[in-house]
């Protein structure tokens, strides 16, 4: 069972480079995302966090280098991602989850109970029938989380899910991230918020200008950063 749950892990990026036009978004990225721990991709805006997540999720093909999922070069199905600005389908909150369950091949008879369970998990049962696009930012983000979980993922990527939320909504998302990883789902999340990474991260990958600055266990990264960039960033200085 444990082995089956870990299909597609670890994720290994080798010498990954992503260029778009003249701009290099990621360069020389060599990193292993292990099966356990919550992995946090930390860095200032524009450091390549979203691009790295999209590469690891198989949405973006690297210009050079390769990504291996559990040793295989083919992208596994057991992944889901919550985008920074999730696109809600023009249907109800329920309808959004039902859509994913249906396309993931969940039997019709099971769908209603799964929808109830997922909406309950993210605390949105009371607005199940509201049109998804009319929900608040925090509610949409929680619905996006439920929708991603409807794919029953082994790995869940979250791209700055709290970036534009108020403290209460941020807390709701962070609590959910806890719950999700306690259920054995591997969480890979990006943030530019040092305090958030302190609260949640097990392992840190710090990016700057599309390159990896430092990686390591969160505890030692925060207590004793090894690089100047990490020290500056943690001290609250502006990284340019």
């Amino acid at each position, binding site marked *: 069972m444990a082995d089956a749950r870990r299909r597609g892990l670890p994720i290994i990026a080798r010498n990954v480079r992503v260029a778009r036009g003249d701009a290099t978004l990621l360069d020389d990225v060599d990193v292993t995302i292990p099966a356990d721990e919550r992995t946090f991709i930390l860095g200032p805006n524009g450091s390549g966090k979203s691009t790295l997540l999209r590469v690891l999720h198989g*949405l973006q093909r690297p210009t050079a280098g390769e990504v291996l999922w559990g040793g295989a070069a083919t992208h596994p199905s057991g992944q889901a991602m919550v*985008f920074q600005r999730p696109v809600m389908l*023009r249907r109800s909150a329920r309808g959004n989850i039902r859509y994913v369950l249906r396309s993931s091949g969940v039997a019709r008879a099971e769908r209603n109970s799964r929808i109830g369970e997922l909406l309950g998990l993210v605390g949105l049962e009371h607005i199940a029938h509201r049109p998804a696009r009319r929900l608040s930012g925090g509610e949409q983000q929680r619905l996006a989380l439920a*929708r*991603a979980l409807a*794919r029953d993922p082994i790995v869940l990527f979250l791209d700055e899910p709290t970036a534009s939320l108020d403290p209460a909504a941020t807390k709701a998302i962070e609590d959910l991230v806890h719950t999700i990883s306690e259920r054995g789902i591997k969480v890979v999340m990006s943030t530019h918020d040092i305090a958030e990474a302190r609260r949640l991260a097990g392992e840190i990958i710090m990016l700057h200008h599309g390159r990896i600055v430092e990686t390591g266990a969160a505890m030692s990264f925060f207590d004793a950063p090894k690089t100047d960039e990490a020290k500056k960033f943690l001290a609250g200085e502006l990284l340019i």
Partner: protein
Amino acid sequence: MSTFSESLLVAVGLIVHLDPHLTGIVLLSLRVSLTATLVAALIGLPLGAWIAVSRFPGRDALIAVLNAMMGLPPVVVGLVIYLLLSRAGPLGSWGLLFTPTAMVIAQTVLIAPILAALSRQVIADAWTEYREQLTSLGATPFGGALTLLWDTRYSLATVLLAGFGRAIAEVGAVIIVGGNIDGVTRVMTTTIALETSKGDLPLALGLGTTLIALTLILNLAAQATKSWARARFG
């Protein structure tokens, strides 16, 4: 001066009293153009969606052809369908020439490219917004196309309306393949053309007024639906 006002007065009378001759013509017009819009939608919308989300060699050329076909001259479409359906033509044995069915075929050919080209644009725009999200959720391009057809349904309603507007207002194609036979294939536009040349201005004006009013009402309804949907679904 007085011809116009007198004719208009008689025309209003014809409309108000639901003159059977006039209503018969209006109903046939609606039947032909609505059927053509329906058939063209069944062809054009899936085609537009498919072109919007798939990548294949020659796609750009196909889009250019499709966009150019939006401006097909109705008389040329009428002529080609006429040649196909005429007794000596390849489909002559179907015996469809000078029937409402022939008119439906001509209008379908005329507006299917419009529906395909416009819906391609609508869905391509939506696809830029949805692509990563849908791919991440495991949708195939085919499934994605279906999803977008549903998610852009209110914009597509306007597309359908544009097609219907083109169908109901054109005269060139239906007059050639329908033959403008009284009580059989005479629709609003062909009657207006005929009665004007005959000098029966009241009927022509009455139909003209009905045509414009109909178009206006449909567009108002579409506009209302769209703003309602926007408020409801975002």
